[in-house]
């Protein structure tokens, strides 16, 4: 397993994470439940993380993995604040449907 990354071309990781990112974008556009939208944002963040780690490993440079670590930190903080916002929204309008929250639209 030590030289396992030698047999997998780096382009495959590029393709995989692009596809995952697009699934996340599709989910954000497709769903109306705000929690699912938050989860799709997590999916997009993870696609970018995977790409950063693959480039970091293939180039032999640790900085990409340090960046991924900080992205994880920011994602954890973002999820905590986002879910707190969702709970307080749910308390006010008794729904997590984002189409109800259109008061700031115009």
């Amino acid at each position, binding site marked *: 397993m*030590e030289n396992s990354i030698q047999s997998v071309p780096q382009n495959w990781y590029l393709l995989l994470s692009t596809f995952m990112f697009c699934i996340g974008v599709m989910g954000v556009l497709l769903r109306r439940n705000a929690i699912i939208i938050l989860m799709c944002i997590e999916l997009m963040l993870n696609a970018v993380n995977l790409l950063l780690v693959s480039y970091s490993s293939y180039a032999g440079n640790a900085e990409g993995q340090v960046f991924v670590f900080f992205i994880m930190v920011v994602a954890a903080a973002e999820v905590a604040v986002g879910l707190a916002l969702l709970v307080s929204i749910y308390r006010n309008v008794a729904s997590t449907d984002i189409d109800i929250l259109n008061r700031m639209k115009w």
Partner: protein
Amino acid sequence: MVISQIIFYMLAAFTLLSALFVVFSKNPIYSVLWLILCFFSIAGHFVMLNAQFLAVVHIIVYSGAIMVLFLFTVMLLNLNSETEPHKPTLLKFAAVLSGGALFLIIIAAVRSTMPAPYVAPQLSEVGYVKNIGMKLYRDYTLPFEVASILFLSAMIGSVVLAKKERFN
């Protein structure tokens, strides 16, 4: 075919399938559970890439903390497939079409600017705990400390936001 390629294909198929199930399942709880599986397979990719530290941190932070938070919120708000709102079919088609178009555009852009592929080193050691720790505590000390302030403010902010307002 080398065994690591087979492992890559299986992990990639698992990742993509579970990501698709996250988007398309009707019940939010099933979405959360599929997302946990997706994160585990991404941790498997990290192990394949010799990034052991990030694999462990990914499992602890994402599958252990963030998804439990999601699951708690879904259960706290009592969301299930009956209360799940759905978009009109036309908008769903538009969403899928624009996601696919974005995929094609990114692939085309990457193809036209394809750099020379990296030659993978014989043994990539950058992902080991020792190397990441050296990098983190030697070159990135200030961001590391700022991250703790970010966590503190996020904690205070989420408590303030989720608290019941008593004065209205």
